[in-house]
């Protein structure tokens, strides 16, 4: 095992010393991610920042800010009045909402009160949408204040203490917020994905992992070209140790490469939470292992760099095109061909987790196929190498 570890370390050292390869495998995924972010605008859902100036600070004002901040579509940024006006003057922001002093007290006493919507020009499309959302939430807070006030008024003189009235009305108010009497159900047209990113992100991840085949398929050819393979064969290294070392290095490299994509995908595109992140990361490691196995099989069979490149390109293209990397394979011949690709099983399992809320336990077939391909490919590769080099 120690010799395999040194082979793996050597492989990684050589990889890290090659700036071109490093750029290819780390920088390009980030560029591609940036393009994806630009195309999909950080997701298909609206998201904006609400600049709030709270001059009141009372309970109703704080409740309004809290509820706005709890919305998925809005991030609240609280500012002072001076800061908001200065930012508006500089066009750093286009809109800000001011909760006036006495806002909470006015609501308490049943008086009408208004938020101030300060805007530059028309406030921008985003500002107008945020204004609508703020208005809706503010009116809800106002209505709930009114319910509380009516309850207080109706029970006035009954001897029921105001604290008890608050205790009764608070859960009802919270329930009406969580379960509004009128909701909106979203129905997707047939065949349309609920979130395109749930397929795009796995597609990009798997596509980049496929490049491990191209890089890995060169490994023994390169050792032969350098003359180091023959030299290694005069040491105590066995074929199994050589393959285990190189295989491990490629798995690690593929896994790190997918992490480079995975982190921004979850942090910026918000395609899922921590549980989904961990499960997708584990699938990436499995895919990295199976494609590394295929790379080792190729490198055992071929003798020249061209043979290695073309074999890897063919397999990568076949699996990317017919594996439904960025689209649903549907039925028919494409569906049949997709069964012979790793992409299908990798993407199916990732989409299942992101879109259908499944977990790794539900992915037995998909994970089993990938693991099986990886193990069989490495065993086949080592056997081919032993046969061709006459090495035990």
């Amino acid at each position, binding site marked *: 095992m120690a010799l395999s570890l040194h082979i793996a370390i050597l492989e990684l*050292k050589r990889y890290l*010393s090659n700036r071109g390869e490093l750029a290819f495998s780390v920088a390009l995924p980030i560029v591609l991610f940036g393009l994806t972010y630009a195309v999909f605008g950080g997701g298909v859902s609206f998201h904006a920042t609400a600049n709030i100036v709270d001059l009141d600070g009372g309970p109703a004002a704080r409740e309004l800010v809290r509820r706005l901040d709890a919305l998925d579509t809005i991030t609240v940024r609280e500012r002072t009045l001076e800061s908001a006006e200065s930012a508006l003057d500089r066009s750093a922001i286009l809109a800000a909402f001011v909760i006036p002093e006495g806002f909470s007290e006015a609501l308490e006493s049943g008086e009408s009160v208004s938020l101030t919507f300060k805007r530059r020009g028309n406030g921008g499309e985003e500002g107008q949408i945020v204004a609508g959302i703020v208005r809706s939430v503010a009116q809800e807070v106002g209505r709930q204040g009114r319910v509380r006030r009516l309850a207080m008024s109706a029970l006035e003189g009954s001897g029921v203490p105001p604290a008890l009235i608050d205790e009764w009305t608070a859960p009802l108010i919270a329930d009406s917020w969580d379960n509004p009497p009128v909701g909106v159900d979203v129905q997707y047209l047939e065949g349309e994905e609920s979130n395109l990113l749930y397929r795009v992100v796995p597609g990009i991840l798997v596509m980049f992992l496929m490049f491990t085949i191209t890089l890995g398929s060169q490994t023994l050819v390169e050792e032969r070209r*350098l*003359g180091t393979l023959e*030299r290694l064969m005069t040491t105590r290294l066995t074929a199994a140790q050589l393959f285990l070392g190189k295989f491990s290095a490629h798995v690690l490299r593929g896994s790190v490469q997918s992490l480079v994509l995975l982190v921004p995908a979850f942090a910026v595109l918000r395609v899922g939470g921590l549980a989904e992140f961990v499960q997708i990361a584990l699938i990436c490691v499995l895919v990295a292992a199976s494609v590394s196995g295929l790379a080792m099989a190729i490198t055992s069979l071929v003798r020249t760099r061209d043979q290695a490149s073309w074999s890897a390109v063919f397999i990568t293209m076949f699996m990317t095109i017919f594996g439904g990397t960025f689209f649903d394979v549907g039925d028919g011949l494409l569906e049949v061909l997709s069964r012979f690709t790793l992409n299908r099983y990798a993407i199916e399992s990732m989409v299942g987790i992101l879109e259908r809320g499944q977990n790794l336990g539900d992915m037995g077939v998909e994970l089993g196929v990938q693991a099986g391909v990886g193990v069989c490919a490495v065993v086949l590769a080592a056997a081919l190498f032993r046969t061709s080099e006459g090495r035990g």
Partner: protein
Amino acid sequence: MADTEFLVAHGLRKAFGPFQAVDSVSFTISQREIFGLLGPNGAGKTTVIRMMSTVLKPDDGHISIGGFSVTADSDSVRKLIGVCPQELALYPELSATDNLVFFGRMAGLNGRQARESARENLERVGLQDRARDRVEQFSGGMKRRVNIAIALMSRPQLLFLDEPTVGIDPQSRNHIFETVENLRDEGMTVLYTTHYMEEADRLCDRLAIMDHGSIIGLGTPRELKSEIGNPDRVTLEDVFLEYTGRRLRD
């Protein structure tokens, strides 16, 4: 020179398709001996070394090194040998030290031993000042010296040097001669192949002249010279041309 036969090769044969690369080659090498293999291009010298260093299996014949059969007990043989191949076998993007330490680990040394051995061997080949430089920045002669230093990392009992001085400057060549002589003085057994007659004359205790896959002359340089004339007047080049002919080769 000790009499113990450290390497015994008997009836070696190896063919690549219809081409008989090695045909009935037999010789022995004693411990602490520098044994030279001389021959024109394509004579079969490198094929003999590849069979002896466990890379190729002979079609026929037997090789034992240190009492171990190369084919039946190759793992034991690999612990005894160091190989400096004819072509450079280095990782150019790594430093000289990294190259040596890596092959030291492959030879079974632990980290401390490998680093110590790398330092010693870089000093031996005169590259201690360039230890941390990438090999790709080295001249041809320096790369050749690193190639030799790697072969010494396992502290072998038998060193195979396959044309170690091809295409290098006189200074590097002379440094390699001195290195090989020092190794002999330290008790190492060496199998040395070369095109250069003066090298063979200077370094080798005994020589085998190969052509067309067979050994056509075997003995000390003086014995071989005596076979064609006065050994004080005849050169090894005369012997070589006498045995292999003066016709141009491909």
